[in-house]
C-alpha cells in the first residue's frame, strides 16, 4: 500500500537539501581554512612542492598548448565567418587576442586541467585513504594537510597561470597562422588588430583567474580524495565528483571575476 506524501514532506525535503548544501559549504570552508593553517608548516610542504609543480604544471603544458592551438584556429575562422565583410579584416586579430587572453585560454585550459589535475589528485589521495596510508601518516604525527594538501594546492595555484600563459601564446600564434594561411589577412593587419585594443589588464585578468581555478581544482580534488570511502569504487566516484565539481567551480569563478573586474570597466 503506497503512502501518500503528506503536506510536510516538501518542506522537509527542501529543508534537508538546504541543510545539506550549507553543510557541504561549511565543510568546504573548514577545509580551506585548515589548508591555509597548514601552510605555516613550511618544512612539511616545501620539499614536496617542486615535485607536484612538475607533475601538475610542467607535464600539463602539452595539453594546454594542444587545446590552445586548435582554439586559436577555430577562433580566427569563427571571427571571420561571423563578422566577415562587416568589419575590417584586422578585427580578427582583435577578437582572437581578446577572447584568448580574457576567456578561452584560462577557462578551456582550466577545464582540461580539472580533468587531469583534479582527477589525479582525487585518485591519488583517495587511494591513499582507502589503503589507510593517510591513517598511517596521522599515526606518525604527520599532518596530512601540510604534507599532502598544501603542496598540491600551492603547486596547482602557481602552475595553472604558467600553463595558461603558454596557452595564450599558443592560441595567439595559431590564430595568426590561421589568419595568414586561411583568411588572407596579412601579418600587419593581424598585429594591428591584436594591438589596437590590447592592454596588459587582459593578461593580468586571465592569469589571476587561472590561479583561482588552480587553487579551486586542487582543493576540490584534495577534499574529494581525503573523503573517499568504499575502496576502488569509492576512489572512482571521488575522482569523478572532483572533476565535475571542479568544472562547475571554474565556471562559477569565471562569472565571479567577470562581475568583480569587468563590470563597469570599458576598454581603456
Amino acid at each position: 500500500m503506497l503512502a501518500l506524501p503528506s503536506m510536510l514532506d516538501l518542506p522537509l525535503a527542501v529543508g534537508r537539501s538546504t541543510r545539506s548544501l550549507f553543510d557541504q559549504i561549511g565543510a568546504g570552508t573548514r577545509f580551506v581554512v585548515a589548508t591555509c593553517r597548514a601552510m605555516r608548516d613550511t618544512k612539511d610542504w616545501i620539499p614536496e612542492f617542486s615535485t607536484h609543480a612538475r607533475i601538475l604544471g610542467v607535464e600539463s603544458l602539452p595539453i594546454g598548448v594542444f587545446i590552445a592551438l586548435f582554439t586559436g584556429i577555430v577562433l580566427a575562422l569563427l571571427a571571420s565567418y561571423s563578422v566577415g565583410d562587416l568589419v575590417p579584416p584586422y578585427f580578427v586579430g582583435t577578437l582572437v587576442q581578446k577572447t584568448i587572453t580574457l576567456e578561452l585560454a584560462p577557462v578551456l585550459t582550466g577545464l582540461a586541467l580539472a580533468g587531469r589535475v583534479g582527477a589525479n589528485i582525487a585518485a591519488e589521495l583517495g587511494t591513499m585513504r582507502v589503503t589507510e596510508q593517510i591513517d598511517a601518516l596521522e599515526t606518525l604525527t604527520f599532518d596530512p594537510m601540510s604534507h599532502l594538501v598544501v603542496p598540491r594546492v600551492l603547486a596547482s595555484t602557481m602552475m595553472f597561470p604558467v600553463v595558461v600563459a603558454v596557452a595564450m601564446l599558443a592560441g595567439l600564434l595559431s590564430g595568426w597562422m590561421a589568419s595568414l594561411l586561411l583568411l588572407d589577412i596579412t601579418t600587419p593587419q593581424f598585429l594591428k588588430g591584436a594591438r589596437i585594443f590590447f592592454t596588459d589588464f587582459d593578461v593580468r585578468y586571465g592569469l589571476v583567474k587561472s590561479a583561482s581555478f588552480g587553487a579551486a581544482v586542487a582543493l576540490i580534488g584534495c577534499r574529494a580524495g581525503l573523503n573517499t570511502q568504499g575502496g576502488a569504487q569509492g576512489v572512482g566516484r571521488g575522482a569523478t565528483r572532483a572533476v565535475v565539481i571542479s568544472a562547475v567551480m571554474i565556471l562559477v569563478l569565471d562569472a565571479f571575476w567577470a562581475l568583480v573586474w569587468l563590470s563597469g570597466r570599458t576598454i581603456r
Partner: protein
Amino acid sequence: MTTSRRASDFVVGATVLVVTIVVITAVLWLKQADLRGKTRHLVVRTRDVGGVALGNPVVIRGVRSGQIESIALGERGWVVLTLGIDRDITLPSDPVVLLAASSLFGEWQATITDATGLPADRELRAAISESRTSGDTLAGAVLPDIAQLTTVAGRIAGDIAQVADRVQVAFDDQAARELRESLRNFSRLSAQLANTVALQSKNLDQISGDVQLGLTSINAAAEKLSAFSSRVDSATSRGELQTIVNNSQAAAKELLAATTRLRDVAVGLDRTEGRLASAVSKADSVFAKVNAGRGTLGLMVNDPALYQQSDSLVRELRVLIADVKKNPKRYFTMRVF
C-alpha cells in the same frame, strides 16, 4: 628521491622563468612599450576628447607615429592628453592636434597636423584658437564623429522629407499638366532657337570673315604705322621732325596770310559782284528794251531796213574816207594867212 627532487626543482624553475620572460616580452611587444627611451612626450590641451582612449594611435601625415599615453582632467574645464611619439619625428611648424574617429567601429586617433592645413570649419578653428596656450603645450580639438554627422544628416533628411511632402501636395494634376505644356512650349522654343542659331551662324561666319579681312588690313596699317613711327623715330633722332615741324609752322603762317588775303579778295569780289549784279541788271533792262524794240538801238536792232541803210551809209563813209586819203586837197584847203 633527492635526484628526482632536484630534477623537479630545475624543471619547474626553468619552466617558470622561461614562461615569465616570454609573457612579459610578449606583453611589452604588443603594447609597443618604449624601453629604449625613443619616445618623446607631447602635452595637448583640449576641451573634449571625444572617443579617444589610452593606446589610440597618434598619426602624422597618415603614418602612425606614436600613441596616446594618458588622458586627464585639467584645470578650468580643460582635458590634458599626453602623446608619446618617436623621438626622430619632426613635427609641423605650427602643430595642432585633431581628435577624430578613424573608422566606423569606435577607433579614434590623434592626428598632428599643421595649423594652416586645418579644414575650413569655423567652429574647429575657433576651438583650436581657444586651446592655444604658451609653452610647449599643443592646441587640440575634436572633429565631429559619425554619430554627430549622422544626427545632422538625419535632421537634413527630415527637412528634405518635409519639403518633398509639400512639393507633392503642391504638384497636383493641374500643375503636372501645366508643367507638361510648359515643357512642350520650351521644346518648340528650343527648336526655333536652334534654327535661328543655325541661320545666324552662317552670317556670323561671314562677318567673322569680314572681320578677319578688316583685321588683316588693320594689321597692315599698323605695320605701316609702325614703319612710319620708326621713320618718325629715326627722323626724330636726326632732328628732321623738328625741321618738318618748323616748316609746317611757316607754311601754316603763309597759309594763314594767304587765307587772309583771299578773304579780302573775297570781300572785294563780293562788292564787285554787287556792282556787277547792278550793272547786269541795268544792262538787262537795256537789253530788254532793245529786245522790245524800244529806243533807237532797239529800233535799230529790230528793224532790218535801218540795218541795211546803216550798212550802206558805212560803206559810203568808207569810200569817202578812202577818197579823202587819196585826194586830201580835193576836200581840204589850208591857208596860212
